[in-house]
């Protein structure tokens, strides 16, 4: 009996480690067309700020299908978003206290339909309680390009 309980415990632990939280890594199969730069600081030595990008595909009926999450732990990360298809991108800023007291998460979401052959630059920042996400379609010869306006999921059918 005790042995079975131990096995169940190990399986549960392995399951949690394997990502039973529902978060899964975003596949790296697609050509990288989104360059994400991240600058984030919790502003306190006692807390940590984590930034992540959750990618969802959007169907013709505007339903979303979660594809995976990219942890934006590095200052610069390349991501492949399916070109010529509508995707729903959610940048989440999550703070947690090392003392385990409190946690909070806030997010910026937008629809994006990458044009084939184009690259996109996203800047995600968090400092002093102010967060900002800006996505631009890169222009020719490294010019600033055009800013992509945020479109909420409710604008999917329009």
């Amino acid at each position, binding site marked *: 009996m005790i042995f079975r309980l131990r096995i169940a415990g190990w399986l549960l632990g392995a399951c949690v480690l394997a990502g039973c939280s529902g978060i899964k890594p975003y596949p790296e199969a697609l050509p990288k067309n989104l360059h994400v730069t991240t600058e984030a600081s919790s502003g306190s030595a006692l807390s940590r700020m984590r930034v992540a990008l959750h990618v969802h595909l959007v169907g013709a009926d505007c339903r979303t299908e979660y594809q995976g999450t990219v942890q934006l732990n590095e200052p610069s990360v390349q991501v492949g978003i399916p070109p010529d298809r509508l995707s729903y991108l959610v940048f989440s*800023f999550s*703070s947690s206290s090392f003392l*385990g*007291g*409190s*946690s*909070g*998460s*806030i997010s*910026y979401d937008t629809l994006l339909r990458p044009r084939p052959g184009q690259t996109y630059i996203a800047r995600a*920042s*968090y400092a*002093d*309680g*102010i*967060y*900002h996400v800006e996505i631009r379609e890169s222009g020719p010869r490294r010019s600033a390009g055009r800013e992509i306006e*945020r479109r909420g999921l409710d604008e999917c059918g329009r």
Partner: protein
Amino acid sequence: MSMPLLSTLAAATVLLCGCVTQHPQNAEDFRKAVPGAFLARVETFEVNRPVRDIGATFRARAPECLTMKVTTTSQTPGSYQVIVAAYKPTVVVTEQRAELHLQRHFEKGVMAVTKEPEGGYYLLVADAYPIDAKRSRLEIFGPSKGHDVLTRAIMGWATGKNLGCPDLTKIG
């Protein structure tokens, strides 16, 4: 959530509102109530932008940054607390001024102790008035503690120097 925590939050809500038995039911009532209320203040700034531009930035940023539901959790030995707050901004721009109102309705974790206006209790009102063709006076009516991030975000929008959104999980 434990009952002592609920009681504390209810008491704090009453204190924040100056121990009143009725909360302001509209933005004008809120402007009148703040100067005499406990833990509330009016801040005034001068901004080198015309009211029209400030109003345009409020219109562009407030719906995106302030229309949201925020869930905060806190855990201490013996208690686990979840609060869900829904925020609702309103922007009104006229020839005379640009206004930004922010209301908050607690969907979970905090009891409403007085009559709540539609959309939630008023949390903050920011008004920009013209000084001259290029400058404006910004008046922010709101809580004096724990809401600095809101004031900084609104100042960033008013000046046009920082269009970022305030992290609403950081406000009290």
